């Protein structure tokens, strides 16, 4: 069993000794050039007057009627140079800081956001509520494999201001860095940034140590979201890191080829990066390209294919060639519908293994997701933990040294001897058998090990009962509540979220 003991939050990126490249230099160059050609000749849809004006004033080719922006190649490369590719996604304490671009390894997210959850008491599926966000953030706080935290599910009981409530729930339930993907309008952005600055101790301190950031997903192909873009501009004004994600689906929102998927995805995310660098040069940025395929019989979105996994890994080189950090891989449970299944394993092991070896700065990871980000099953995080433990071991490779060659032991034990009783074996053997939920001895006759799902659920119950993330100061919590209440009453926000002006 894994060791469950109350402890302060910590983070553990995985740094690989093994290195892989998917693309050769020629491939990287071709894909980059194609992305630039797309930006210059095809353009990206920006349904935001603010964004269109920013681009036009900077010299891009803007069609205000069609809301289409075409960006000359030189402009892309010039503005990308201003982006900061080395920065901190801060936690509440420096020990929890994710040092992006500093070669510390791959940091993993507990991300989301699913609409539904498996109820911890009944095991039934139901719509997620704010307390589920709090619970999962607490769980994420406990496990070191998680470095970065999202609201994992939507606060379905909070109406239009669910994204704001989700961010508040995370701020209160974890000391780790909090990121949002659902704050998709400038008013909500302002409310949540206000919360972050209260926690940080002021705007300047927040800028210095950004404990909050934004990931914005575009609408493939080659489209940005109005509210999202305007939210990003607010984050950038506050000096907070921003990620741009594209989710091009081969055969649906991208051509049916992996290289084209990368090129079109890269164009989409770079368009957002350029906008932010024009408006607020030096803003810390990252990108994410999440290729997928569809079931050709139904159109169902399919996360877990090998095509998607290798293509997402290839994006690491593209990002780094543009001076940008990257977040890779789904680990939203792939498309598996069952926890603790063979399908769950194959859809979630090799993607992250490849990404770590390719040097991804961040990766979506232990999130409790199954069924293509539509369902949170909290116990899932224990299975992810198993996967990441394996990845950590594998990517450390084999240590070859005088000590590990152990010639002296071999000579001492000799032919037909046994190494088991050796002192060094006593020291090293437990390290070869790391803690796991898979090998919990069973007391049932005829059953060697307990059902791993049951063990995982017990672990989650323990964490929820016994782990207590360091609370925010009561005055800070009060202030967050005040800000959220103000957002709930804000009629302008309601109109903005409903799409009316």
């Amino acid at each position: 069993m894994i060791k469950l003991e109350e402890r302060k939050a910590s983070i553990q990126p995985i740094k690989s000794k093994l290195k892989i490249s998917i693309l050769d230099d020629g491939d990287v160059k071709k894909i980059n050039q194609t992305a630039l050609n797309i930006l210059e000749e095809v353009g990206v849809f920006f349904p935001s007057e603010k964004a269109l004006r920013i681009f036009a004033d900077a010299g891009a080719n803007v069609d205000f009627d069609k809301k289409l922006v075409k960006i000359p190649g030189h402009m892309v490369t010039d503005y990308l140079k201003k982006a900061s590719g080395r920065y901190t996604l801060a936690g509440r304490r420096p020990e929890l800081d994710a040092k992006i671009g500093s070669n510390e390894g791959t940091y993993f997210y507990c991300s989301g956001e699913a609409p539904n959850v498996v109820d911890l008491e009944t095991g039934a599926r139901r719509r997620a509520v704010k307390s589920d966000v709090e619970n999962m953030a607490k769980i994420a706080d406990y496990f070191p494999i998680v470095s970065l935290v999202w609201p994992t599910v939507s606060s379905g009981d909070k109406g239009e201001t669910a994204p704001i409530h989700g961010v508040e729930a995370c701020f209160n339930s974890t000391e780790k860095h909090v990121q949002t993907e659902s704050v998709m309008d400038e008013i909500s952005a302002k409310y949540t940034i206000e919360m972050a600055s209260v926690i940080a101790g002021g705007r300047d301190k927040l800028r210095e140590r950004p404990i909050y950031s934004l990931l914005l997903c575009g609408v493939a192909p080659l489209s940005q979201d109005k509210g999202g873009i305007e939210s990003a501009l607010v984050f950038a004004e506050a000096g907070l890191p921003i990620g741009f994600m594209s989710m091009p689906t081969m055969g649906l929102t991208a051509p049916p080829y992996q290289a084209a998927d990368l090129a079109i995805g890269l164009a989409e995310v770079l368009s957002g990066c350029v906008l932010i660098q024009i408006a607020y040069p030096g803003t810390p940025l990252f990108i994410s390209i999440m290729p997928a395929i569809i079931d050709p019989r139904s159109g169902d979105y399919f996360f877990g294919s090998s095509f998607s996994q290798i293509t997402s890994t290839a994006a690491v080189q593209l990002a780094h060639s543009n001076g940008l950090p990257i977040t890779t891989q789904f680990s939203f449970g792939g498309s598996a519908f069952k926890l603790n299944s063979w399908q769950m394993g194959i859809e979630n092991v090799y993607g992250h293994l490849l990404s770590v070896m390719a040097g991804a700065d961040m990766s979506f990871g232990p999130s409790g997701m199954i069924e293509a980000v539509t369902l949170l099953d909290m116990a899932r995080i224990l299975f992810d933990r198993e996967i990441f433990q394996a990845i950590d071991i594998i990517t450390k490779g084999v240590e070859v040294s005088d000590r590990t060659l152990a010639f002296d032991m071999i000579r001492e034990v000799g032919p037909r001897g046994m190494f088991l009783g050796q002192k060094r074996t006593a020291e090293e053997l437990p390290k070869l058998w790391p803690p796991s939920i898979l090998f919990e001895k069973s007391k049932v006759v005829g059953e060697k090990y307990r059902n791993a799902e049951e063990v995982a659920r017990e672990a989650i119950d323990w964490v929820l009962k016994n782990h207590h993330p360091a609370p925010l100061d009561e005055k800070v919590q009060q202030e967050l509540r005040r800000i959220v209440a103000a957002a709930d009453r804000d009629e302008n926000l309601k109109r903005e979220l409903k799409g009316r002006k």
Partner: protein
Amino acid sequence: MGNKELFAEMEQSIVNYDKDEAVRLAKMALQKGIDPAVAINEGFVKGIQAVGDLFGEGEIFLPELVMGAEAMAAATDILGEAIKKSGGKAKYLAKGIAGTVQGDIHEIGIRLVTTFLIANGFDITFLGTDVSTSLFVDKAKELKPDIILLSALLTTTMPNQKEVIDSLKEAGIRESVKVIVGGAPVSQDWADQIGADGYGQNAPAAVEAVKKLMGI
């Protein structure tokens, strides 16, 4: 060319996913003075039914279905105009309006559903994305559809599906139309909760839900 051969070629143009040929044959039918409703029903509909059958058997996949539907739509656009001018009525299984709800600009899924339904012989008007509740209601009053399809891809825009249903009630037309909801975060539970008549997890499921509701 006799009418029988022309109808056979019309059918074949859809089976071949040949939009240009379908358009050419549609125009030829009008030039020959053939009743456009007959041209649709004896020629093109047979083609789209053949495409649908092949899809159902797993012989072809979505790209072919989309191409077949596009060829069908191109032909029926021409013939449909002629029918309207002559005061006639084309034979469709049912009439519907479809769109993504207000505040949501995702459209791929609902476009696929619309394509599937057209391919299955439905008359669907696609209203687009970010469609206001009031537009859904206005179009429902104007077009008197049998079905309304509402898509939402964000948990924050899902409530607008409920808003449309409630607004149809307020307008006194809820009972005259079947409402089907869909989108990645939507579920059967949600559909039941908001009083929708049906739910489609994906495009084929949406078509089945529509057929079931229409008793087809």
